[in-house]
């Protein structure tokens, strides 16, 4: 049996104990997969990099369909783009396929097992629990050896660089002081251990992946955190602030029109419905990976959060954050719960690096729990909305 590719190894390391293989920091995850597949091709002497471009030096298939597909793609546009662009392109366009293929390989090898636990459209996931943890332990052992004083193998150095780029060292070694690895990793990066033929290429890929992942992570996470925090604060502020008094003067004020004029109410209501449906559509599309090929899922996720913020504003226009009575209270309660849990999940995901720095572990699990809460709060909304709209037209 041939040895595991980089792509498979890094994927194994990125998986969690539940076999989700969907780390929350997908930007890093996707870059890592892109980098890994490029490294696989470099170690197989199929590609090389120079200052301007990443070029194919040997278009012969490697025999591994996963690598060959990417090789063909690069060969088709050889010489026209640099490493950074390719990491970007592959991470955006191919990460999902690479993940599927690598996972399929690992299942075939008897390392993982596939369990489809999807239900109710938006819930659950396909999990890949480990049935043979020998491979993963082997990789971890190799990394640990290299991080202590052993003479490293070039592949291991490359792997460590990728792991470091993905910032998953603390998760791999929860008992160790990861900060202390810093100097050693820096040293490993400088060591000229890799065969001359691929040294430049691997180093270039490493640098690119680290840079790209970090840049993307920072940009995405910062935006996510800011937007989510804005949404959360908007909900919290309007919920906690005392009721806004209406002017005790006769005449159509803006707030009176918003909250008590039938026409305005209808507009704001349908706008809210439209925004909510758009948000739901985006979430499902991202989950089903329908939109990833269009603009990358991160942009869509940010857009999802932005829609959430728009929902908060329109909801305020529609209700003044008054909870009404009975059915309306239930509708409002679930809607606000959906907005708040969504904002919290967004903030938690965006704030993951900060949380990790603060020593919080297993952030992925917490984040998924928040997203689950978000989804559960949304479940009753269609039914409640139908009843709400019906009451308007029947009474």
């Amino acid at each position, binding site marked *: 049996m041939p040895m595991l590719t980089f792509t498979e190894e890094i994927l194994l390391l990125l998986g969690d104990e539940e076999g989700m293989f969907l780390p929350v920091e997908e930007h890093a995850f996707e870059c890592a997969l892109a980098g890994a597949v490029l490294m696989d091709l470099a170690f197989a002497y199929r590609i090389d990099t120079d200052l301007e471009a990443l070029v194919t030096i040997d278009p012969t298939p490697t025999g591994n369909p996963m690598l060959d597909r990417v090789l063909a793609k690069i060969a088709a546009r050889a010489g026209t783009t640099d490493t950074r662009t390719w990491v970007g392109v592959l991470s955006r366009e191919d990460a999902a396929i690479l993940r599927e293929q690598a996972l399929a390989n690992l299942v075939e090898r008897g390392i993982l097992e596939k369990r489809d636990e999807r239900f109710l459209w938006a819930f659950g996931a396909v999990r890949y629990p480990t049935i043979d943890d020998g491979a993963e332990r082997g990789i971890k052992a190799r990394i640990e050896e290299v991080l202590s004083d052993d003479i490293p193998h070039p592949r291991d150095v490359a792997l460590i660089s990728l792991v470091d780029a993905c910032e998953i060292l603390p998760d791999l070694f929860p008992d160790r002081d990861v900060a202390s690895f810093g100097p050693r990793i820096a040293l490993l990066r400088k060591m000229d251990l890799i065969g001359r033929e691929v040294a430049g290429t691997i180093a270039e890929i490493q640098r690119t992946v680290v840079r790209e992942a970090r840049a993307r992570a920072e940009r995405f996470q910062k935006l996510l955190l800011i937007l989510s925090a804005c949404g959360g604060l908007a909900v919290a502020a309007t919920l906690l602030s005392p009721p806004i008094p209406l002017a005790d*003067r006769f005449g159509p004020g803006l707030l009176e029109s918003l909250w008590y004029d039938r026409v305005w109410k209808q507009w704001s209501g349908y706008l809210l419905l439209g925004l909510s449906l758009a948000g739901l559509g985006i979430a499902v599309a991202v989950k089903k990976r329908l939109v990833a090929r269009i603009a990358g899922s991160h942009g869509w996720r940010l857009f999802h959060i932005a829609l959430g913020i728009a929902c908060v504003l329109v909801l305020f226009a529609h209700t003044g954050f008054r909870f009404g009575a009975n059915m309306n209270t239930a509708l409002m309660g679930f809607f606000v719960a959906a907005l708040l849990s969504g904002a919290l999940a967004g903030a938690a995901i965006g704030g993951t690096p900060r949380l990790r720095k603060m020593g919080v572990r297993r952030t992925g699990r917490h984040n998924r729990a928040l997203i689950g809460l978000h989804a559960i709060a949304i479940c009753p909304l269609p*039914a409640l909305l139908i*009843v709400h709209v019906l009451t308007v037209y029947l009474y």
Partner: protein
Amino acid sequence: MSPKVVPWAVVAATLLGAVWFAAAMTVGGDRSALLIGETTDAHHQIEIACETCHAAPAFASAARAEKALNRGCRRCHDKELKAADDSHPRKKFRNPRMAAYWEKLDARLCTSCHVEHRPEITRVGAVTVAMDFCVACHSEGDQDVRADRPSHAGLGFETCASAGCHNYHDNRALYEKFLVRHAGEPWLAAVPVHEASARQRSRKPPSRAALARSDAIAPEAALADPAWLDRWAGSGHAAAGVNCGACHAPKSGKNATREKILARWVDAPGTAVCEDCHRPQARTFVLGRHGMRRHPRVAKPRNPLRQLRRIGLSQVVPDEVASWLADAAPPTTMTVAEARIPMRPDAAHRALDCGTCHTPHAVDTARAAVEACASCHDDSHTRAYFDSPHYALWRAELAGEASPGTGVSCATCHMPGTGRRNRIATDHNQNDNLRPNEKMIRPVCLDCHGLGFSLNALADAALVGRNFKGTPAVRVESIDWAKKRAATGKRETGG
């Protein structure tokens, strides 16, 4: 529990809920959970009979729904508005020449100012617009009151209705000429007697019909309790010749034989037997808050079979299911616990029908006029009554120390006698002259008090709370202003 169960359960529960509510809306069943906001006082008694007001067909246009809603208002309130000589009647604003006013405040629609289920903007009198609403039409052009009346120049529009000077609907005791005519009246009349009460209380039933203890026709078991018999023999019923059978065997007919009465005897007859004779009282009782659940205009429960036919599902849904969806029978009486004003906790369970205030057999109207009220009502005004000059007068009248009509009971003001000459009946619509309290001036206050004093007293909320023990601390200037204006004019009639 597997985490999978939670979303499934939530989705299933809400779908079931949605189906249930859709059925409740279109076929039948409890709809209280669909109420979008607290219903205003009094209307809350009939809030489950949605069709009373929401009479438009499903998916009617907004304009049509609004029209139907307003027709609902008028069906119940039109008569009282007419009686109040409504200052802003709908007919006045339907003329197209008033179109400019429709934009400002559409007075053709009750719902322009009174919107239901909006507790957060509902003000006094179930008004849902800011209380300075007069500004809409009376602040510019020919209708600018400040330009027309120098005395009004510096007044804010929020004071029009709150200072005891004007009401939107009922100005029977507030219009200029009335003020002028009653200017300078002393605070208390030389002979302070409430006319209608005096006539009612001095009324004697014809003695030739009077029945005694021995005349009672009832089963042995019923006659066994002497207390019942005594109470009846001392009551107005016995004095007016109303024997046991009139109420306990209503189906035996007039002048029935003893056998027939005993054969058709009912131990606990309903209030229908009361209504049979006391028609004006029964008619007005359902108009007030005490009896409005029996108002004939309150929508009847929906027939689920008919509703199913209407939406074309009568073939699909089996009759058993349909009957299971039927509306609950609406309560016909109001319980004390449902009241939204302070009530005695020990009376919470009591339901309001004739017998609540008028004990069967004794039918003591004096008790019904004071003690019956205080056995449920527990607000400051009620509690203060027993320490008030009005109550002292009432005690004096009951003790025979003062002539009929000089005492002031709760009913004297809140359920005054109405009608002409000898056909006076107690108005059982307690709401008739309740709010705005200036409505009380003509039928009640003015019989004993001067208009100026009455206006001041009613405008002094603290004094009302003390049940008029003390003197008004508020001075309503409207009489002075009206006098001043009348003095500057020449004559006051015109063509």
